[in-house]
């Protein structure tokens, strides 16, 4: 079966159902960006998306989110003002509340996942001031004036991040539960590579480097803080490689024998 960029070409001009139109209108996706958005879906129909977004999100979404939230009395309240996905937030909360719980339980940002709550899986990975960190081991109280990016803030409006489109194309997830963490991690990884940061697999850390071109094993090592129980690792690596190099690859290809550089 021949591979094409968007494996099953989606006819962006095709007629959409009223539901689909309504959803895209709702999301504010019009004109050219609508075409682009559909293209990014990599041939995926909007059908299920519409149904699920309508059924899952709208029916139950907090219409008034944290504004209507009555904080239960807590013993050591702290007030924290910080930025989440570009929006200023100010919360009064229990000093014990982790950033992960604040995002999920107070700000309705449930994309970041709690896989272990102890720093051992990476599912809660978010980006704070440009660096990937674990939200489950970060006290919200320590986030005063910081800028937090979660999975919900990775796409620029309707423009998916290259990592997100590559994840869809390379099927870099199965159940999808680790995916928000993987994507936040991968987005930050791209910057780390640009900065020339070393990893344990870097052959000679003394060598000064500019932007790095990462080998597959380098990607593997640098992504090892994000566990995936479904075992999507090879596809995660393929997706990151594609976004990192900018070279499109066939998600179905059988590998050439490649030489690994791991000196583990």
């Amino acid at each position: 079966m021949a591979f094409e960029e968007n494996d099953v070409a989606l006819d962006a001009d095709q007629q959409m159902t009223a539901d689909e139109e309504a959803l895209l209108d709702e999301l504010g996706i019009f004109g050219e960006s609508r075409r682009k958005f559909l293209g990014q879906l990599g041939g995926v129909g909007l059908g299920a998306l519409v149904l699920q977004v309508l059924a899952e999100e709208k029916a139950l979404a907090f219409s008034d989110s944290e504004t209507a939230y009555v904080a239960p009395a807590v013993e050591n309240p702290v007030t924290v003002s910080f930025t989440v996905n570009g929006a200023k937030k100010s919360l009064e909360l229990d000093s014990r509340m982790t950033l992960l719980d604040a995002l999920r339980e107070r700000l309705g940002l449930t994309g970041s996942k709690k896989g272990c709550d102890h720093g051992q899986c990476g599912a809660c990975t978010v980006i704070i001031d440009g660096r990937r960190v674990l939200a489950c081991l970060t006290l919200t109280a320590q986030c005063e004036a910081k800028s937090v990016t979660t999975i919900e803030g990775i796409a620029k409006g309707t423009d998916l991040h290259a990592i997100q489109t590559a994840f869809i194309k390379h099927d870099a997830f199965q159940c999808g539960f680790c995916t928000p963490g993987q994507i936040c991690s991968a987005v930050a990884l791209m910057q780390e590579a640009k900065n020339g940061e070393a990893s344990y697999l870097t052959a000679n850390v003394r060598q000064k480097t500019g932007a790095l071109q990462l080998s597959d094993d380098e990607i593997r090592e640098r992504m090892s803080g994000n566990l995936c129980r479904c075992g999507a690792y090879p596809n995660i690596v393929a997706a990151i490689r594609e976004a990192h190099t900018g070279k499109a690859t066939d998600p179905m290809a059988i590998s050439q024998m490649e030489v690994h550089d791991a000196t583990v």
Partner: protein
Amino acid sequence: MASDTKVIGEAISRIDGLLKVTGAANYGMDWPIRNVAYAFIVKSTIAAGTITDIDTAAAEKSPGVIAVITHKNATKVVAYDPMRGIGILQDNKINFYGQNVAVLVAETFEQARAAARSIKVSYQNADSKTDFEKCVAEAVRPANRNDAVRGDFDAAFNAAEHKVDATYSTPIEHHHPMEPHSAIAVWEGDNLTLYSATQVVGGVQRGVATAFGLKPEQVHIISPHVGGGFGSKGGAWTNVILAAMAAKVVNRPVKLAVTRQNMFNSVGLRQQNRQHLRVAATAEGKLSALGHDTTQFTTTTNEFAESCGILATMMYEVPNSRVGYKSAAMNVIAPTFQRGPGESTGSFALESAIDEMAYALKMDPVEFRIKNEPPKDLSNNKPWSSRATVECLKRGAEMIGWKNRKPEPRQNRNGDNLVGYGVASGSYPSRQSPTSTLLKLARKGDDVTASVELAASDIGTGAHTIIAQTAAETLGLPMSKVAVKIGDSALPPAAGSVGSIGAASFCNSVADACNQAKTELQAKTDRKWLIAPTVAQLMDAASLNEYQTRVDAKAPADAAKYSSHAFNANFSEVWVNELTGMVRVHRHVAVTGAGRIMNAKTARSQVIGGCVWGIGMALTEESIMDPRWGNFITRSFADYHIPANLDVGTIDVAFIPEEDQFVNKLGIKGIGEVGIVGVAAAIANAVFNATGKRVRDLPITPDKLL
């Protein structure tokens, strides 16, 4: 355009992909429910005995605490399931370490967790069985399990010239789906809604309804996305019951997630197995006898046995064989199904022993397997519906570069590493289970959209997508005109995503519904067609803008006449650091004959996932119980090592094209389970080829290769 709709089998990206890469997919704990309270479970710190007292006074006074529920004040519920239902606070008995003894509800999660620590439980200890080494001595044949016997094993084995007699051990393993088990429970009068990710929507509904004495339709399960299950989300474990109970007690919605630490003794496990293999063959390489005796444990309250020996009954042409089981009751949480239940652990033993036999005979292990290929299923004398073992072996050998393998160990090197190649074959049965589908069609002019609705589940297998593909192709609609609604108990009942029955059960039912709709529409009009009409034309002819139909599909009657399995071959190239003993799966090849592949992309991913699971089984995963108390000392993700990204090298996947007309109408065999079968053996065999060390005790950690 007709060509647009040939989508079955294509490598189409998941239709739920966008939701998953943007964080919009809702898993069990993600639903924005108002006014929730948070629950936290307290666990027993003894393995057997009784609770003599629970002091909850301090906890009750703790800030934010709304209720503390113990066996003294728990809502009466029915013990609904001897496997999953132990620990619903109905009495003071303790059967295993880490059994639920209390659940505490507070305004915030922090308050609940903090208060839980102040609950003091006093126990009367009873004798406990927590040492596998001691318990195996008392193991007996389970009541419902006779030996599977063919020919005269003892005579043939004793008389044979070439034999292997070895024992293989596999440890306790935990499923550890990335999404811990959880539920948000919301009562409205006597009706209960549970937002809870599950592999079997109907199973959880029935379990909970039984427990609370409700009619199934009073319990509504919502589970569109499941963060992995691997067997552990097959039914209602105690956490779901306790969430519902807590919500009832505090009369408001309750959120309850099992902590990762508590996943070790809350939602089942794969039990420890000790497998004794005896293999005999002629000098020419024909198997003459095969004995496979498994000793394992089960919990004190429920008999559960993994069928480790099942492959020994049907994988090879061997005239004399005997396969048996012994089981010992232990004070451990109930074992349950885990990916490739029986076949995965069983294939480690069987396929290692086959490798040992081939080595003893100085035969190539691929050839040895091909030489002993059975013409039919000798365990029941049924013909195979199809069997691709030989093609899998041949194709895999080509893909891995089997010719680079040296028959003798320690002949291949690369720097500090010894390089080795290993092979194993495997299989897993194929079945279709009853599944109903509701199909709704809506038409505006020439434009038809379909909504396909069934209480199926998508645990990462790609069910959403293959259901859409089936409907799109059968109805002749583009994918974007098909909406899929699953994961909701209000929808028509469907099989679970368990035992690799999902794809066959869902897709055959969906195809039936679509075909039935076309037939019914045709019957409503007497218009004749020169070329097959589109659904739009049919609806137009019948003057309908909306139409719906429902089927209750089940396996074809003839399917039982055949032995239907998916078959595979795994090939592994490992690099073993000669000094440190660290093993790396450098490259792994999995070739599978699984009938019709519904989506080449998601199928490939599932097989890759199976390989990664096999890597974990072979190299990293082990739950260790302290025999003194029965507690797990590997009680976190830092101690229980599921493979990390760097553990996994290149994985290449291929499918042997198969058109199986007997297994079910669409010829689907299922791939989720077979994907793990044989992987650990291929790796262990490769480690032997690399190092000359035969590790019969998984996992192969560095210390075992020094």
